C-alpha cells in the first residue's frame, strides 16, 4: 500500500479537525497542497487516494489541487541556485560541489482551502456521521 494512502488519511483528519473549529464552516470547493519534487510523494497517487477517501466526508465535493514545487539547490561555492537532475546529477553542474542547501522541493503541506459558494451549514451531522 503506497504511503500516499496514509498521507491522504492524515490530510483528511487534519482538515476535519480544522473545519470543525471554524465558526462558519462551509462546503469546500478545493484543497490546495504544495508538494515538492524532492519528496517521496507521487501527486497522482495522492489524487487517486483523495478521490476515494473523500467520499462520505465534508470534502466529498472538493477537488484536490496539487502545486508542484520545483527542486532547487544552492551551490555555496558558485553562490547560485541550480535545478538538480533527479536520478542523475545532484552536484552543482558547474563546479561539482555536492548537494548542499536545498532551497525548495521539500514542501509537503496543506497550503489553503477554497470555500464553495454556499450558505454556512452545521458541521456536526456530517462530521459525526463520518468520523464517529
Amino acid at each position, binding site marked *: 500500500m503506497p504511503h500516499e494512502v496514509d*498521507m491522504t488519511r492524515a490530510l483528511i483528519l487534519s482538515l476535519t479537525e480544522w473545519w470543525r473549529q471554524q465558526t462558519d464552516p462551509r462546503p469546500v470547493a*478545493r484543497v*490546495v497542497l504544495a508538494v515538492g519534487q524532492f*519528496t*517521496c510523494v507521487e501527486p497522482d497517487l495522492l489524487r487517486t487516494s483523495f478521490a476515494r477517501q473523500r467520499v462520505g466526508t465534508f470534502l466529498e465535493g472538493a477537488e484536490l489541487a496539487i502545486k508542484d514545487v520545483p527542486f532547487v539547490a544552492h551551490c555555496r561555492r558558485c553562490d547560485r541556485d541550480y535545478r538538480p537532475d533527479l536520478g542523475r*546529477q*545532484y552536484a552543482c553542474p558547474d563546479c561539482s560541489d555536492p548537494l548542499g542547501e536545498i532551497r525548495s522541493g521539500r514542501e509537503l503541506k496543506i497550503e489553503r482551502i477554497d470555500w464553495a459558494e454556499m450558505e454556512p451549514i452545521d458541521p456536526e451531522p456530517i462530521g459525526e456521521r463520518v468520523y464517529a
Partner: protein
Amino acid sequence: MPEASTLAFEDSPAIDGVLLNIGLLADNDDLAAVNRARIEAAGARCVNIMSSPGSGKTTLLEATLAAFAGTPRIGIIEGDMTTELDADRLRSHGAHVAAITTGRSCHLEADQIAAGLDRLADAAGSLNTFDLMVIENVGNLICPAAYDLGEHTRVVLVAVTEGDDKPLKYPIMFHGADCVVITKIDIAPYLKIDLDRLTANIRQVNPMATVFALSSESGAGMDAWLDWLRAQRA
C-alpha cells in the same frame, strides 16, 4: 510533472479561501517530538535504521548485540510488515524487542513508536533501563524517509549487492542520513561493484554523512561502527 498541475488560479483575489500552511505530516511530527522528549527524559537516545529489504539491517543488529554483550543496553523497536521473524532473531541475543507488524503499510509512523516504547517500558520495568533505542524500520528506501519517528540519528544501509547507483535512485533517503553503512563488503570481490563510485554517489547527495564499510559476517570494519554507535548515547 505535466504543466496542468500548476494552478492557474494562484493568488487570485477573486477566490474566497483560507491560507492554512499545515504540514501534511504535522500530526506525525508532533508525536515524533513527544517520543524524542520521552526517550531523552529516560536518559537515552534513538537511532532509526533504514534500508531496502535484504541489506542486512537485522544481521548488523545481531552482530552489534553480540559485540556489545549488554553494554550499552539497547532497546529495539522492530518494524516488519507481517512477521516477527526478525524480532525473534534479535531476542535470541537477549535484547528487549518490541515487534511492530505494519500490515500492508510500508513504513513506521510515530504513533507506532510510542506504542513500542510503552511495550519496552513494560517489558524492562522502565525506559531508564536503556542507553540506546534502536528502530529497525520496514525494508524500504522510499516511504520511511518521510516519517520522523522521534529518532536522534538516521542510519541508512546499502549492501554491495545493491549496485553503486542506489544513492542516485533514492536521493531523499540518502540525503537525510546522518550515517551510511555499506554492508556485505566481504563479498564485494565477487561482484562488479565499484566501492569508490558508490561512496562518491553517497557523497554527491550527502557530503556530511559519516560513512562506514563493513561486513557483519566477517567482522571487517565493525569496530568503527560500534564506536560510532556507542557515541550516539546521551
